[in-house]
């Protein structure tokens, strides 16, 4: 079965990409992902804010209590105070590129213009085959206009595209009034791919402590609905690659995403739960599904159920919407 796919202009042996997760934090983890069959690997994210905060915390803790008491003017051996940059991250990218035969995609989460540009360049120099921008912005200032929020994305994309030559993807949140138009304009601005969607920061509440619990949970198959819809809507209407992200638990979700029109499918949560070797099962099941239906390559499958290919594109969204409601009601009825 020919599973080969294209993403951001890169050749992939299959469409399943291990997306950013702690599994890519070590070289052995990266190798294990490759050995398990990953078509490509998106490295865990380089967080500019985290680097900055760690440096601040480092300085703060090194200085705490110093120059206060004559016997203990400091508490640690003096070290080079130069702030720690992304060296370890870049180093790992270099090693990963050398040690694997699959595309290695850097992932960057910046907070300043300098951060976006400098780190993007360094990731390219480290040898990454492509770069994914993970724009992580919550416009809690309610005075901020939607257009201003959107402009940030375009500014960042332009700054990064101007400074690197490797392909650049943006991982988006679904929370835009006109997500389709947003993707279209990013496409026009030169983005090489969009990843739909990121698992946006959605805090939970801890009822025992009555506190906000910022910890992320792993994704579940129910979450594929939103990306599935938008990939189906966007397929065939933009130049940029489409990557599906969220909710992949089994080959079923992979197939659904491919049918909607995704070029590639990102997986992380299931690998965290079941281990990187689960990639083998996903690929085998995918192949089995295709074989059982006499497909010979992914090209035949991709976008089959997209809006672009639907017989009645105008009715696509509405019908689906109604169906969702009905099914939801019937679930309630069953429980009641």
């Amino acid at each position: 079965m020919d599973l080969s796919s294209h993403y951001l202009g890169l050749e992939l042996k299959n469409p399943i990409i291990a997306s950013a997760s702690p599994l890519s934090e070590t070289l052995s983890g990266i190798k294990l992902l490759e050995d398990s069959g990953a078509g490509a690997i998106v490295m865990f994210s380089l967080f500019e804010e985290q680097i900055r905060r760690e440096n601040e915390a480092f300085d703060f803790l090194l200085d705490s209590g110093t120059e206060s008491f004559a016997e203990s003017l400091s508490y640690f051996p003096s070290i080079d105070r130069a702030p720690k940059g992304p060296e370890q991250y870049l180093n790992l990218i270099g090693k990963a590129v050398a040690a694997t035969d699959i595309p290695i995609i850097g992932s960057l989460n910046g907070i300043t213009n300098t951060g976006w540009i400098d780190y993007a360049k360094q990731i390219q120099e480290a040898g990454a085959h492509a770069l994914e921008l993970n724009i992580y912005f919550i416009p809690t200032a309610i005075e901020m206009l939607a257009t201003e929020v959107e402009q940030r994305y375009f500014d960042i994309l332009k700054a990064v595209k101007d400074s690197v030559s490797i392909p650049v993807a943006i991982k988006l949140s679904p929370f835009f009034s006109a997500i389709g138009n947003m993707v279209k304009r990013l496409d026009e601005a030169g983005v090489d791919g969009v990843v739909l969607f990121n698992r946006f920061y959605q805090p939970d509440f801890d009822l025992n402590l009555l506190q906000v619990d910022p910890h992320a949970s792993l994704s579940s198959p129910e979450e594929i609905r939103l990306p599935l819809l938008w990939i189906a809507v966007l397929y065939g209407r933009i130049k940029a690659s489409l990557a599906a992200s969220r909710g992949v638990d089994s080959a079923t979700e992979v197939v659904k995403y491919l049918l909607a029109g995704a070029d590639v499918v990102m997986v992380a949560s299931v690998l965290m739960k079941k281990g990187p070797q689960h990639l083998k099962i996903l690929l085998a099941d995918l192949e089995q599904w295709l074989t059982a239906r006499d497909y010979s390559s992914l090209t035949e499958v991709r976008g089959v159920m997209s809006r672009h290919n639907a017989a009645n594109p105008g009715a696509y969204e509405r019908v689906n919407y109604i169906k969702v409601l009905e099914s939801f009601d019937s679930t309630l009825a069953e429980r009641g």
Partner: protein
Amino acid sequence: MSESQIVTVDGNEAVAYVAYRINEVCAIYPITPSSAMAEWADQWATEGVNNIWGNIPAIMEMQSEGGAAGAVHGALQTGALTTTFTASQGLLLMLPNMYKIAGELTATVFHVAARSLAAQGLSIFGDHGDVMAVRDTGFALLGSSSVQEAHDMALIAQAATLAARVPFLHFFDGFRTSHEVNKIELLSDAQIRAMIDNDNVRAHRERGLSPDHPFIRGTAQNPDVYFQARETVNPFYERTPAIVQQTMDSFAEITGRHYRLFEYTGAQDAEKVIVIMASATETVKQTVLALLQQGEKVGVVHVRLYLPFAQAAFLDALPASARAVAVLDRCKSPGATGEPLLHDVVMTLSEAFSDGRRGSLPKITGGRYGLSSKEFTPAMVKGIFDELGRVRPKQRFTIGIQDDVSNTSLAYDPGFSIEPDNVIAALFYGLGADGTVGANKNTIKIIGELPGFYAQGYFVYDSKKSGSQTVSHLRFGSEPIHAPYLVQKAQFIGCHQFNFLFKTDILAQAAKASVFLLNSPYSADEVWARLPRYVQERIIEKRLSFYVIDAASVARDTGMGGRVNTILQTCFFALSGVLPKAQAIAKIKAAIKKTYSKKGEEIVLKNYAAVDQTLAHLYQVKVPLQASGTVTMPPIVPAQAPAFVQEVTARMMAGQGDELAVSQLPVDGTYPSGTTAWEKRNVSEFVPEWKPELCIQCGNCSYVCPHSVIRARFYHQSALDTAPAAFKSAPISARGFPETRYTLQIYLEDCTGCNLCVTVCPALSLKQSGVKAINMKAREPLMATEKENIAFFETLPVNDRARVDFSSVRGAQFLEPLFEFSGACAGCGETPYIKLVSQLFGDRLIVANATGCSSIYGGNLPTTPWTKNQQGRGPAWSNSLFEDNAEFGLGFRLTADKHRALAMQLAREFEPELGADFIAQMLTAPQKTEVQILRQRERVAELKALLLQLDSESARDLLSVADHLVRRSIWLIGGDGWAYDIGSGGLDHILASGRDVNVLVLDTEVYSNTGGQMSKATPLGAVAKFAAGGKSVAKKDIALQAISYGNVYVARVAMGANPQQTLLALREAEAYPGPSLILAYSHCIAHGIPMQNGLKQQDLASASGYWPLIRYNPMLRQSDKNPFVLDSPRPRIAFKDYAYNELRYKMLQRTHPDEAGHLMDLAQQVVKQKWDVYEHMATWTGSHFHPDAAVTFTE
């Protein structure tokens, strides 16, 4: 002569630089103020810096100075170039080896930052008590007077010892030289190399032990030859002075810096001469030069090589015209006819006179000065010369104090000053860790490294570890600065904390028409009215130019967060006139670029903006012609404080301790308990506020409060009839207490704002997220009402101990803490344990406290935290030394047992008079519970009352020991440095003694008090000083060691993991009639954690299995139960999930990432293996544990 590199360093670094470069082995142990020398050596070794032999010296931290001296001796005897660094008690521990090293004519240099010895009290500060204690060892004594000289003499001593074979002790004044920052010419490796004779080095090696040419050294000798053999070394000592002078001459050829064994400065026809050593020499020299200008015939002999005392060279140096000579010693020899240098000078001059080499004998007087870094100023020097001008000068005198007991002190005019006009002196008042000292050190470097400029810095810290005041003394000038004394008159005064104006006379040292910079939250228009009246008066009287800056708001507006150091530094550069303003600002910007460019352009620009905005917001205050202020300085202590506190303690608190007369101080180091209660420090702007309506009265906050600031009482509701309107209370939540109210009172003026109480509070508001029953609030608005509330709270009766449930955390909150308001760090992890011991056993407690953090916050003057209850009972506390605390505490037990036995013996003699039943009951009554102890106290009180009526010798005898009939609780408290390292042998011995002592080890896993050096308690993988590359050996398990005795009660506790288990363990240990050992996890600022997370880290340490909570109670063996109880559940998190919350582990990830990963893996394995051992032990039956080591009852 090659061109020298100019650097700005302190004395310790200057000395260590040379010692490191010449030696192959450094055996070290931390002790203030010498620790930094060893730290530098370790640092350079970690960084891979080579010595002049092209290799990295072996740096070995030992378990004590005794151990370091032993290792030095061994390395020397096998031919390595070896050194060590030490001070004070550390040097005393080296004495036995020093006799051996000298007796074997072994070349070495010990570098000593001279420090006082502990006598009536410990002092970390400088004098020559330690150095003079080694006079008989056979070491040569070479003293340095400045940072440059200390750098140079380190090399001269090393070159000379190799040539002479006599070992050298090179000393310089602790703090005054070791910590003074000054500009020096650095010796190049080539210069150092040129001074060391290779033949001498090879000869040193050749003398080492070797199986290839064997001999024995270190024989035992008998009366027939020991004496003669002792005399064989004389020629070596006779040759040494000439060798030193030759070495100094060679040094001069290489460097251009000339030194003499004895150096005379002054008039050639001087009549009055002072003889002196070390840093004070510079003060005398400068004063002599000033007095010469006034036509005085004075001079000074600077003694560099004290021993061997070169008599001829001394006589050459001292002008024959001298009529009166004052020999000054910085030490005291009680009972002797004089101090050491005086003896040598008298001997030399009298011999010269008697054999005709001198035609006359001057009047010779001996004086003591500068003990424990007591200031020694030009005014005092002038006073001494004035005394020498009298017909009958005092033969023995002191200077710098007022001795109204023995009348030794000389009077002098403190107004006499020789500060030259071309020097700008500046004083800065800051808060510990607020960046003031760091910024000033930076300023000295910036200015000092400009050609044609010289700079000096010296920093004074107060006695508390939290909220302490720092005073920076800086001088700048166009000539090298030789002024080893505090700034007397400042042209610039910077007060970086507004509230200091209400605590200290900030402007006392302000020179006329000088500049006063105040960091003020009030504007230039508003500030005047806010000043205390005395400040206004000083500003007017001294015609000060007065400027204000609101540094906090400039920092906030320029994105600097809370960092105000650059802002205040900019003010100094702009106002001080050290450099022209434009040049000064350019320099500070250049320094910013150098410091921050690695952090990115953004940070540089932010700092530039801070500089520019500082200049825009720095305002001169228009000073009125007359003071109008109504604000006054509050009294230091309240009027109801006892007389001693008013007259003595308060003076020390106000920074006027120097003015106390000898007669005002106790003769034997005995001070009253509980003086911290009189010192309201108000160090935290934020303090907890209690919400009674939310509180569940669990007692957690009060339990963990390191400063005993949170107090709980319950009382009958009628007591509230007279309460202030704002007094808070709630119905008590316990059953069986009708009409009873509960109050949690915050002593807000004593709070350090650590936040631990809020962290542990489990009671949450259901109406507002994040609000608890205790929350941090701004202190100022609460002050008035809470002070009134505290006053009322103190009128409520202390809860009856017999009615309190000792077995629960909830109950323990009602026990009065007899350890309160210490100067420990905010959020200290040690003091909650100590406080708990004081609550549980305080009224019958004697504490032996090892030197370290706990002896400092427990016993550092002016105010001390151990206090007493309303009956006048409370912990009796003492500190002997660092190394002997276990033995010291065992001594307490021996006395207690002896005197109890004596009391019982004497009591039995009174059976006929007082009744056999009464006596028998008293001697046999159980004393386990609080009620039983209370009953026994009543019996003893009755006994004493009866004995008072019997006017007999034996009644008086029994009275003198009757108190021992109430069981005493003896606790030996110290840190891991004591228990794991220096005191390990003694601790082991007392645990094996079977005696009833309780050992509390406050385990911070590092030498906290001396600034974070590795101990054997430091965990695998953690970074510490002397383990900059991460500790590679796992922590010693002294719990298992102690358990192996079978009859030692052992517990490992962590209050943050299980407070109830901590409480249980302390009570079991105390009740156990044999030795007990409690290992208490004590989070520490040296772990690199935000201190409010301390208890959380304790919990994680336990959850990871790294710190398993255990109790081994030998009592259980009596019923054949397993005495070993594992109180922790199985590990539920990985070790790294605990460890990587702490900088001590995280740091290695940054500096040595691969090694960090490796050590972390090993550490996890150790955790697992240890856990398995414990878990296995927990399944044993009682008979598995030493059947022959049954519980020993010592009665």
